[in-house]
């Protein structure tokens, strides 16, 4: 799990045509070089002709530049932006089933509250929690819950968009 926080962590936001096989083309460029994709999220954009793939990879900058250029050669890839973590808004969601016997259940529920998660399912000795937020927050929650016992966990992989400019653009004349 640790590599997500490593210094080689890059986020690529890739706008593609929403067609069969495009994901295989994109992931194949990483696979042939032996690079593991750390996380991946894909869904159609507001324009259903296109999908956005958010890829997190741990690669040195030089091979990444080359991969980005090769990605752009794919006919179905429309646009690529590399998002620096400091210049992007990132979110990820997690579902986790956590061991919560009556004796510890109160503590688990309290921590879920602190992290602004929600309990979405309850069993005799377990609860299932949904939590969304910056990936680091999910990492922290995961670390804390390990003490109680995680019985199942699924993260979505992160989605990201560039941060918006904080200064208004100069007013332009209209007409």
């Amino acid at each position, binding site marked *: 799990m640790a590599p997500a926080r490593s210094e080689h962590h890059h986020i690529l936001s890739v706008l593609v045509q929403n067609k*069969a*096989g495009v994901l*295989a083309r994109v992931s194949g460029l990483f696979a042939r070089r032996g690079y593991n994709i750390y996380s991946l999220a894909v869904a159609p954009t507001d324009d259903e002709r296109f999908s956005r793939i958010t890829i997190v990879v741990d690669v040195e900058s030089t091979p990444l*530049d080359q991969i980005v250029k*090769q990605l752009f*050669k794919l*006919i*179905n890839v429309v646009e690529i932006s590399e998002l620096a973590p400091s210049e992007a808004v990132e979110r990820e969601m997690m579902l986790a089933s956590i061991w919560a016997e009556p004796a510890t259940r109160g503590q688990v529920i309290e921590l879920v509250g602190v992290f602004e998660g929600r309990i979405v399912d309850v069993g005799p000795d377990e609860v299932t929690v949904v939590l969304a937020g910056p990936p680091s927050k999910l990492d922290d929650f995961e670390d804390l819950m390990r003490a109680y016992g995680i019985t199942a966990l699924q993260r979505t992989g992160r989605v990201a968009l560039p941060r918006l400019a904080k200064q208004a653009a100069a007013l332009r004349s209209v007409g």
Partner: protein
Amino acid sequence: MNGGQALIKSLEMEGVEVMFGLPGGAILPVYDPIIDSPIRHILVRHEQGAGHMAEGYAHATGRPGVAMVTSGPGATNIVTPLADAMMDSIPIVVITGQVPTVAIGTDAFQECDNIGITRSVTKHNELVTDAADIPRIVREAFHIATTGRPGPVLIDIPKDIVDPRNPRSAMEWYWPESVDLPGYKPTTEGDPAMIAEAARLIAESHRPVIYAGGGILKARAAEALKALAERYGLHVVTTLMARGAFPDSHPLCLGMPGMHGNYTAITAMQKADLLIALGSRFDDRVTGKLSGFAPDAKIIHVDIDPAEMGKVRRPDAPIVGDCRVVIEELIRALDQGGPQPDRHVWDTQLKAWRVEFPLTYDQGWDTGDTLKPQFCVESLRDRAPEGTIVASGVGQHQMWSSQFWRFEQPYTWVNSGGLGTMGFAVPAAIGAKVGRPDRTVWAIDGDGCFQMTAQELVTAAAERIPVKVAILNNAYLGMVRQWQELFYEERYSEVYLSPDLPDYKMWAEAMGCVGLRVESPEEVGPAIDKANSIDDRPVVIDFRVDSDEKVYPMVAAGTSNDEVILGPSQGPGGH
């Protein structure tokens, strides 16, 4: 109209005059409308042949080659030509049959995942799922194959959408006026600021060399290159893929660089203070050990493929664009700049190297002297009609052909550069001859290569395609033998082939060709003249050449281009 008819009609709309292929179960419905089409179909004996013929056709004509094969083994047999075309940026369109849509993924008879298998060896590939998409996808395929950096495109067609007995094949004919590919917009015009920077680098350079690659030919930029070189007195090396892009007889031509390039071309690049890379990609066979390559040179890199910028060597002036357009822009920028520096010291040095280190070999004429392969190539060259196209396979014969032929015109050299596909010569020569029936086409082949694809001479004989094949038969996988001799202490492992098994003359005759055999230097000229005089069927000459002859100069793999090993007769020993 049905999908099969639409496919053939779409090819007609794209101006396809000839296609190479071999039918089978899944592609059968598309073969039926071929009977009524003006397109000439050439029936090959193996699908690999169809692919290389399409490549040879594209090499020689600049127009996209087309091949069509069936599903499963038909498709897997054409993977090598696709990879070859991908490496050498050859525009071809390959159509593969596929099992019916409902059977895909069920391990049906002759099923394989054509799209998955060919994804990394095509510029683009597409599975057609609806007959109505056929005209659009064909239009897009030709557009993608021929624009930007050219390359192979594969269209995979399930049987049900082309079979008139299946209602899924019904469609209304249309022809799209334009293509709509939002993710595909090749840049053709160079960035003016970078072109100005390139002009400035040239105006400062005392030892410039133009490093011309295959992109010159793809961009139809040979005239522009000549104008640039002549106007500014710039010397030119032509890589293996660019032979013919600049005339070998031109005083500014330095010939081929690289592992088996000539001393002057290799050393000019090493000592240059500026390399003007035009449509070339710093291949490892050109650069040798990268850290020692052209250490003092600044780099202008012009290529239509942005992914080539900095892939191998960081350019000082990267220019993404079409070579012809950029060269013309560069000439304009240079014309507006100041005078060029005095380069007579450099020019004199280059002249001196050419005199001191020529490409040579020793053909003895005494009884018992063996026939030298280089002498065969020179004899073929000297007796060839003007404009003769030469195709080659891969290995020693390829290097001797590139070294000793004199290429004067573009599009006269057809070979497998990047992938190094043995067996390329015979089918590629056939494709070239189909595209340029007005030209003499010689395949200069090795005995190892010839055995890989010789069956296509049956195709050539049956279709009356009178190509000529010169086998430089040294009874070995010669290039591998050369490496074993030089780098494996003469431990020859699995390289001996025998000079007379098979009997190449009899084999040629069995395939409907004229077969000739040459064993001594005196027989060379008459045999070539005889071959050149035959124009109603293919000819094969089995030249029994010296097994010991090696390709020199040589830069051993992994060493620097400063360490050129010269042949025994090539100047003052190796260093």
